[in-house]
């Protein structure tokens, strides 16, 4: 059985196709491990393997799904007590597509409440532990998905990324995580945090798995007006070198002053990866993203503003929990929301409400939108000279549980290198670049819109050269 667990998802697909292993056995192997989860990575686990579907591309390799994807008849709580026990009457497009492609639902994974957080400590259902060190956080907000894949409780998983919520937990758990181009994957059925930023994407053990899973997620959905047809199929990467590629290292994020907050171990791993990239034929040089230092401020206005409206529907009227239902409307609203939302969610609703208020809109939300446009222009300019912009994914490795919960601003700094990309709507990938003090470090590459295939190829070549071994977390 442990042999099955050691297969990557793509390897498992190949073995299933060759009928060397059995799909229900594989499902059961993971189901048992997920059910015995000690990391609090899952909020729900399937009770049995579904009927196998013949002749599918993914041959029945199950997938773990972040809680905020709606799944018909299955708890979909987005990590929030306000949705405790909520079972939607429909399934998110991405999940339905994966099921149709032969990746059945293994379980729902824990997350920061409404995807607001970088440590998974904001979950209404308790924190998730990092399988590399159980005293540490797995990152967030897709912390449950990351921990589950890293610990071998699931062959692969999907999460969502708004300001780094796939890439940062992937980095902290030693996985590959992809934040696709905005619009590449349907958002229909994803319980929204910030609609103009949210994107679904894979969290996997390696780059090939990421490409394979992503290839079955992308595409236009008539139910999501902001989704687009991906201009080309996502293909499995095979590159072994980086010849002819130019990597830009943004001075504004990594220069002496800006980069001061980056841990030495992370910095060392990043520098080593750059050296490796040069060995593989890449050109590495400094690039400019003049407005990137303002990305975090813009993000923490735009995302909360959208969230303040997106979360208004949780009012106790139609679904989810309700408090003081026998009192007047105002009381029911305020007590339901006071009891149902955690402190970080409340903080962001208040921030967002304020930012949109009459008289403050121009100064806050309006300015943030302008900064957002500037950041997108910065990237366009950078991509004239460079194929990719590269950074460490997170300035830190996995930090101890509780070490940053009292300081929201310090926690927000986690997203320093991951927030500019969703603001620009461009894709980025994080892959493990090694360990620092025994904890995984993530290396991020960002490319122009719809450059997913090129990003995956480059990441594949780097992955081969780095030779990261994540098996320790599965032990």
């Amino acid at each position: 059985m442990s042999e099955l667990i050691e297969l990557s998802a793509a390897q498992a697909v190949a073995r299933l196709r060759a009928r060397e292993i059995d799909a229900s056995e594989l499902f059961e192997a993971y189901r048992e491990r997920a059910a015995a989860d000690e990391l609090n990575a899952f909020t729900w686990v399937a009770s049995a393997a579904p009927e196998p579907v013949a002749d599918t591309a993914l041959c029945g390799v199950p997938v773990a799904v972040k809680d905020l994807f709606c799944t018909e008849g299955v708890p979909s709580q987005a990590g929030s007590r306000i949705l405790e026990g909520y079972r939607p009457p429909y399934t998110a497009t991405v999940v339905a597509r994966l099921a149709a492609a032969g990746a059945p639902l293994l379980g729902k994974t824990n997350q920061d409440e409404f995807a607001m957080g970088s440590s998974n400590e904001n979950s209404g259902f308790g924190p998730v532990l990092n399988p590399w060190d159980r005293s540490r956080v797995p990152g967030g907000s897709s912390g449950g998905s990351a921990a589950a894949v890293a610990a071998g409780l699931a062959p692969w998983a999907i999460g969502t990324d708004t300001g780094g919520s796939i890439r940062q937990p992937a980095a902290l758990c030693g996985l590959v995580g992809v934040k696709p181009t905005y619009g590449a994957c349907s958002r229909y059925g994803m319980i929204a945090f910030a609609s103009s930023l949210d994107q679904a994407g894979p969290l996997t053990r390696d780059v090939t798995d990421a490409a394979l899973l992503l290839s079955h997620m992308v595409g236009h959905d008539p139910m999501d007006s902001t989704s687009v047809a991906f201009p080309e199929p996502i293909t499995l990467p095979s590159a072994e070198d980086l010849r002819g590629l130019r990597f830009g290292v943004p001075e504004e994020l990594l220069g002496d002053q800006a980069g001061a907050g980056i841990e030495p171990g992370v910095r060392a791993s990043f520098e080593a990866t750059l050296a490796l990239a040069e060995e593989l034929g890449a050109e590495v040089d400094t690039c400019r993203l003049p407005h990137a230092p303002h990305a975090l401020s813009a993000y923490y206005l735009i995302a909360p503003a959208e969230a303040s409206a997106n979360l208004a529907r949780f009012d106790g009227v139609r679904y989810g929990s309700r408090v003081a239902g026998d009192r007047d409307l105002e009381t029911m609203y305020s007590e339901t929301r006071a009891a149902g939302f955690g402190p970080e969610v409340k903080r962001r609703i208040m921030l967002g409400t304020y930012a949109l208020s009459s008289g403050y809109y121009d100064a806050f939300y309006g300015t943030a939108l302008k900064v957002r446009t500037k950041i997108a222009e910065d990237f366009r300019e950078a991509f004239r000279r460079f194929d990719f912009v590269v950074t460490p994914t997170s300035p830190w490795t996995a930090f101890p549980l509780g070490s940053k919960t009292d300081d929201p601003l310090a926690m927000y700094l986690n997203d320093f290198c991951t927030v500019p990309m969703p603001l620009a709507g461009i894709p980025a990938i994080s892959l493990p670049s090694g360990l620092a003090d025994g904890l995984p470090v993530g290396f991020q590459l960002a490319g122009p819109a719809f450059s997913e295939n090129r990003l995956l190829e480059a990441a594949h070549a780097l992955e081969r050269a780095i030779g990261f071994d994540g098996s320790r977390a599965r032990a």
Partner: protein
Amino acid sequence: MTSAGIDYEPVIGLEIHVQLRTTTKMFCGCELSFGDPPNVHTCPVCLGLPGALPVVNARAVHFATMIGLALGCEIAPRSLFHRKNYFYPDSPKGYQISQYDVPICSGGRLGDVRIHRVHLEEDAAKLVHVGTSGRIHGADRSVVDFNRCGTPLVEIVTEPDIRSPAQAHEWLALLRVTLRQLGVSDVNMEEGSLRCDANVSVRPVGSGQLGTKTELKNMNSFRFLERGVAAEIARQTELLRGGREVVQETLHFDPASGTLTSLRSKEEAHDYRYFPEPDLVPLLVSGEMLAAARAEVPELPAARAARYERELGLHPDRARDLAFRADRAAYFERALASAPDGLGAVELANWIPQLVERIGSDADPSESRVSPEALAALAAMVVSRQASRDAAREVLRTLVAEGGDPRAVVEREGLGALSDDGGLADLVARAIAADPDAADKVAAGNMKAIGPLVGFVMRETKGRADGGEVTRLIREQLAVR
């Protein structure tokens, strides 16, 4: 300082919500319905379930474009949807998707009132307060029916160009027939497919400045609109005459008591925190979409009435009476097409109200037994003096009941006009002989006395005689010039 001696004039602008008659809702595939059991036309989108996303109804955009064209608006090639945030159980998402600073249509005019803008949005759900009062305060409980939620709406906002309650009524009626003619809405005020709010202020006559306005909500009939606006004008005028000030607020007009009550003051006004709807891309209206909408805009009531006046010489009231009812206009135009030489449009048009009077004003004349050709033939017989006006009315009654060819009816019932050679002159002579007193007076030039003489002839001919001809013969025989 009091202003007792000053005359005030009202300044009125209207905001009209119109439910569009699309097959499905504004942002989802649920069917539109009226009168179905509650909560049968719902889905994750219109229930505001977590994760659901809106998709714009192309038909609603088409209808809004038609309305914009009909009202002479500029159609924006690119417009935006915004979120209008407010908490209420009739708003399942906690916001309404509406258009804010870049609406689909702006500018324009209908009749004598300028249009400020027309924008697309979604309707709210319907709240039913169970309990004694029927209002939310004091209700035992409230239940929500989401069937209506997400129904496509356009909001039409006028400039403050209306100067009296009667003009408000008249203009809204014109808007309603225009929208009905476009076929984009049921425009039924009782059922709520047409809803009207009014912004009212008053100012000293001759002043170029606007006074402080109040907003009157939801007047659900033409009569209530007129009465509500009149009551508010009276209230504001009295305030100003007494040296007091009008306070900006939103008012509710109670048609039962005729009183106005404040719903909320300016301070209590919502901050809707509008921002661009991130779940939707900008709304683009292409040249093709514009052409398709233009092709479906028929001749509209105001233009048709003007044409009837200008080209057919109809009296303005008659022109509007016909033009503002698509069914009557269609019937009239078919009758006109079959009118023989000598039958003028004015003469023909005069017969439509008589037909309407007999079939009832709600009925479509085309669905009566009287074909447009038959009505034209009847009118022609009167013009050519083949039938008297009275006889023709008689024939019309028969046609309404039985249908058929008016010539045959005249023949069958013996209602053909009597002429000079038909013994009419003899009858006139008998009338003069029978009432010498009246004859003397007429002969002396007192034409008022002619009545009994004409009446005698009409009685004798059972109305078949042509009144004009009878008068002519009486004057001839009595040698009156």
